[in-house]
């Protein structure tokens, strides 16, 4: 279990470093859905020579970057309801067709935030159990995408681990997460536990174990 003294002692990777690690793992020509919030910056870190096609739940394939102020079209928005653009080769479709792309297993990767990820790959990211329940497309994405990547801080603001033996919050999906990218490590979900495939250069495996509720191994 975590020692609360460790909270924020060692500084982890910043968001752009995490995003860049994710971007490096998205192969050329893959179809990708980036969750609202932190995952959106992944698109800024794609290596030269790779073409990635971004999908947005609201019927947009081939999503481009944020428009300039004078190019904003309120009929061209993303799943976060923010103005976006469409790239050549993109297309529009209705919501059922858009979710056929997700639910039918056609999206190669989705990248989502997390409140908790369990050692079995369970994900909780839609509800704290309080307030107005709102799920959006998260449950469809984790059930349908070929690979579910989680981009998250390793510990909560309160200093609690987000990678846990068992999720305590309502699940978004059970056994759905393939890989977690945190500020301290890149971790695959395996039958043997949290397998560390990349670790922050400033920490030890013991440190990582200490901030993780569940067995980590190299």
């Amino acid at each position, binding site marked *: 279990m975590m020692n609360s003294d460790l909270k924020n002692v060692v500084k982890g990777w910043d968001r752009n470093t995490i995003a860049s690690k994710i971007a490096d793992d998205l192969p050329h020509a893959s179809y990708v859905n980036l969750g609202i919030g932190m995952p959106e910056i992944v698109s800024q870190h794609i290596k030269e020579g790779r073409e990635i096609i971004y999908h*947005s*739940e*609201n*019927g*947009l394939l081939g999503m481009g970057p944020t428009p300039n102020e004078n190019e904003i*079209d*309120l*009929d*061209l*928005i*993303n799943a976060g*309801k923010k103005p976006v653009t*469409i790239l050549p080769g993109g297309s*529009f*479709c*209705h*919501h*059922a067709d*858009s*979710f056929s792309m*997700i*639910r039918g297993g056609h999206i190669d990767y989705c990248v989502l935030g997390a409140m908790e990820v369990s050692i079995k790959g*369970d994900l909780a990211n839609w*509800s704290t159990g309080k*307030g*107005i*329940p*709102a*799920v*959006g*497309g*998260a*449950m*469809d994405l984790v*059930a*349908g995408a070929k690979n579910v990547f989680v981009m998250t801080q390793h510990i909560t603001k309160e200093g609690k681990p987000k990678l846990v033996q068992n999720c305590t919050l*309502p*699940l*978004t*999906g*059970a*056994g759905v997460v393939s890989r977690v990218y945190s500020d301290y490590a890149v971790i695959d979900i395996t039958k043997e536990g949290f397998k560390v495939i990349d670790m922050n250069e400033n920490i030890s495996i013991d440190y990582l174990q200490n901030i993780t509720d569940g067995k980590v191994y190299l």
Partner: protein
Amino acid sequence: MLINKIKAEISEMLSEIFDGATIMVGGFGEAGSPIELLHGLIDNGAKDLTIIANNAGNGRVGLGALIGQKQVRKVICSFARSAKGITFPELYNNNEIELEVVPQGTLAERIRAAGSGIPAFYTATAVGTPLAKGKEEKVFNNKKYILEEALYADFAFVKADVADRYGNLTFNKTARNFNPIMCMAAKQSLIQVKKIIEPDKTNPEHVITPGIFVHKIIKIDNPIIETNAIEEGMIYP
């Protein structure tokens, strides 16, 4: 006599609305949201409504305004939380409105199913989560799925871009969203459009919603822009 689904007045559009009706409301965010039809529904005064939509309204405009008028008994949607939401949270926190949360893709597919004669289908979405509670579970190819039932409606409120008098519709960019499938699922679909063209100007290859799914059309060539209306503090009525 020629087929002509175009009406002149919002009141004609809404003449068959009744208390207790189930109404689908198209749009995702404000893109494709039929604000003028919703304001017409406030004027109409029908109550005890069930609304099926992706969201639960922003500010006191459109769906937000309708909910604020306490005309809505229940909302079925994927995402009732919104930075600009006022009326739904108020009523919800006072237990004055019911909420059924449905994953966005399941919502879309349940709507399409209703329009396609499919009373129920299996899906992997929400398996193992609280939203699967009480739902029949079945295994296909060693994977668990739950049974989801079709979502039917009496009316669909839709905003399209262009229509002809047969009801052939096209939409603008991501304003398409739920609108085409809601036209399929409702007994009567009511469409506000920006532009009306002659049928021989409709390209049959480009029609998104064929006229068979459309019942009444009204031209609203300069619809309210929700973002601006909320910024300007608009309150309807």
